[in-house]
């Protein structure tokens, strides 16, 4: 393998690794649940992208083409916001405390009971 490819692989792996690390640091460092959620949803996405790019470079040039990784990226991009949404919805449902300087707390509506206007199943 040529020298510059090794450099490219190393660069992408390091870039991805540091973004994943920053995402995890955010997870421990932030004061409340809602702020903690920001790290894993964003920094980790780009981090995974970097690692997968490194993997694509490595396997493409050590024999054959490797484009599986694009699929991983697509699925990651589709599922990450959904899981974040589910987590934050659950947090609101359980009325988790946000730190006191959070603004706009009155924008959260209290949970309403579901109207039972649907027909029961036979």
């Amino acid at each position, binding site marked *: 393998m040529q020298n510059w490819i090794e450099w490219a692989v190393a660069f992408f792996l390091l870039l991805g690794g540091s973004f994943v690390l*920053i995402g995890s640091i955010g997870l421990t460092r932030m004061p409340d649940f809602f702020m903690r959620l*920001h790290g894993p949803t964003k920094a980790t*996405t780009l981090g995974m992208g970097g690692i997968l790019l490194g993997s694509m470079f490595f396997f493409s040039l050590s024999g054959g083409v*490797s*484009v*599986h990784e694009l699929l991983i990226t697509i699925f990651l991009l589709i599922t990450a916001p959904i899981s974040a949404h589910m987590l934050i919805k659950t947090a609101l449902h359980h009325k988790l405390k946000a730190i006191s300087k959070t603004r706009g707390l009155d*924008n959260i509506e209290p949970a309403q009971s579901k109207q039972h206007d649907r027909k029961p199943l036979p």
Partner: protein
Amino acid sequence: MRFKPKFGWLPTPYRSVLLFIVWLLLNQSIEAVHLFFAAVLAVVIPLLTLRFRDPQPLIERPLLALRYILRVFADIVTANAQVAVLILGPKRRLNPAFVRVPLDLQHELPITILASTVSMTPGTVSAEIYPSAELIPAGEPMPQRWLLIHVLNMTDEAELIASIKQRYEAPLKEIFQC
């Protein structure tokens, strides 16, 4: 908004294209056999699964949709850099907030795409949609809906709402023509 597909045998053209590409990616080849099977699966799978799903609005402006995807990709990269800086910077300076964004979109699919985009882009995570679809009695007109988002560091609320509406919601309205 248009729900009825143009061709009966190809109810979801873009999903078919996606299936075609995914099959080729899984096989990692563009040999004739794989191209043939990809084409067959891309036509047969949507036809078989058509009855299981609710009708969804169709994409009316594919080129605009492509531009929207590229823009979101670029925003994800900048979002990552921004959030990384915010995470590593001093905690005292962060101003978290909950913000309500009034939505012009009505249908579930565009709203879902908007909420996912908001979650992936700078400093915001979408939290909830008010009022939720279960609370709206069937057959009644849709009331004004709101998207509740959590912002990691809010500087200007009005500007944030305006930028979300103009940058992401307006193209989505164009794409689905609603």
